[in-house]
């Protein structure tokens, strides 16, 4: 069983590596097309996608491979949409990107709740309540993202129609529900603990224990 898991992990890691190579190619294409906004954009995306590995190196944090993979995937989908105009040439491409981004948000949300539940005295939560919080968290982050788009802080062009807004929010909700269902089942089977165990312990050592110690001192 552990052999299968090792092979799977190895393949997933290779896939993540492949995605990063595609991102580097994206940066080269952006340079070649002299699309400077997107040179910066792709570079930030690349940096975000390798951030887990950088953290791992400096702070000895092992991020769940799912998280690593999702960050790389979302960044590539977004960059592809901007650089190759897939957002405008492929129908509903923006919904696919949005869906995977929401899956990432939902996974981060569920992982955080689970880790806090395991390590922090300030939170004890039933697994179904965790599923509920994952859904509302994903929906709320989706709304915050829409506020950012509305304010247009980045100066990027977005299609601002009610229909697109409602479709985006629907996508967030569906992604949140899917991750909540998968997550609750993984928690039941004990697999979610395996995925987040190492990361959770590090977060506990680095943040939660210090926070609790400071609270006790006060």
């Amino acid at each position: 069983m552990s052999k299968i898991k090792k092979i799977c992990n190895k393949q997933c890691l290779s896939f993540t590596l492949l995605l990063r190579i595609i991102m580097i190619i994206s940066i080269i294409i952006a340079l070649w097309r002299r699309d400077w906004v997107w040179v910066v954009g792709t570079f930030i995306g690349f940096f975000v996608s390798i951030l887990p590995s950088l953290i791992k190196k400096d702070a000895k944090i092992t991020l769940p491979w799912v998280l690593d993979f999702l960050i790389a995937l979302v960044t590539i989908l977004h960059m592809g949409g901007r650089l190759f105009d897939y957002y405008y040439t492929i129908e509903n491409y923006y919904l696919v990107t949005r869906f995977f981004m929401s899956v990432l948000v939902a996974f981060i949300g569920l992982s955080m709740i689970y880790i806090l539940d395991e390590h922090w005295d300030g939170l004890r939560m039933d697994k179904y309540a965790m599923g509920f919080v994952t859904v509302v968290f994903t929906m709320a982050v989706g709304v915050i993202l829409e506020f950012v788009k509305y304010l247009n802080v980045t100066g990027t062009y977005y299609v601002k129609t009610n229909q697109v807004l409602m479709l985006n929010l629907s996508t967030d909700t569906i992604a949140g529900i899917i991750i909540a269902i998968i997550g609750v089942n993984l928690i039941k089977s004990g697999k979610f603990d395996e995925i987040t165990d190492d990361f959770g312990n590090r977060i506990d050592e680095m943040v939660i224990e210090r926070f609790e110690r400071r609270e006790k001192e006060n």
Partner: protein
Amino acid sequence: MKRTKLKSGEIILSYTLKTVMIIFLIISIWKLHWEWIFGCFLAIIVSFVPTILKRNYQITLPLVLDILITFSLLLHVGGGLLGAYNIPNYDTLTHFISSFLVAFLAFVIIYILHVYWDGLIMDKYAMAFLVVITTIAIGVIWEFNEWITDLIFKTTEQWGYDDTIKDLFIDTIAGITMAIIGVSMIKRGSFDEMTDELGKQIDKRIIKSNREEKNE
């Protein structure tokens, strides 16, 4: 002594709002506004739900909840009947009050679950965070409801992109406001006082926990 005074003040306010609602019903009958006669009648029934719950089922809702329900219904009925929706930002005010009511309800439910249910123990700040995101999420569900209604019945419940964003923003502000008020009330102990009776009744009927055991 101070608490009793405050409670009687809340009772007076609650009944005053209900009386105004009855006055609205009389006005709508006088003007023969059939839509608002029905609206007022429905609103009066809903605003008396807390009283009915207490009398028939011994479920005591916090008086603040009673007042908020009546006030938000009153604003909506008054807006339609007296044309107050034409006043600038009146719609924003009614939306804020409704969202605040939702946030308040969410806080009450989360707090009661925290006190009585074994499946939930939360720090007060975590509760506040959950209230904010729940209020936003319920706001989104409300927008889905309007969107689907417009798609099916070809109505214009949603006025457009800017209006939907504004509604979601108001939901967020209402959630944050309630979260701040709720946390300070928990710190003072007044939130526990306010939800104590309802919590015990819910525990007795639904949760069936052992509070002492949990607090240990």
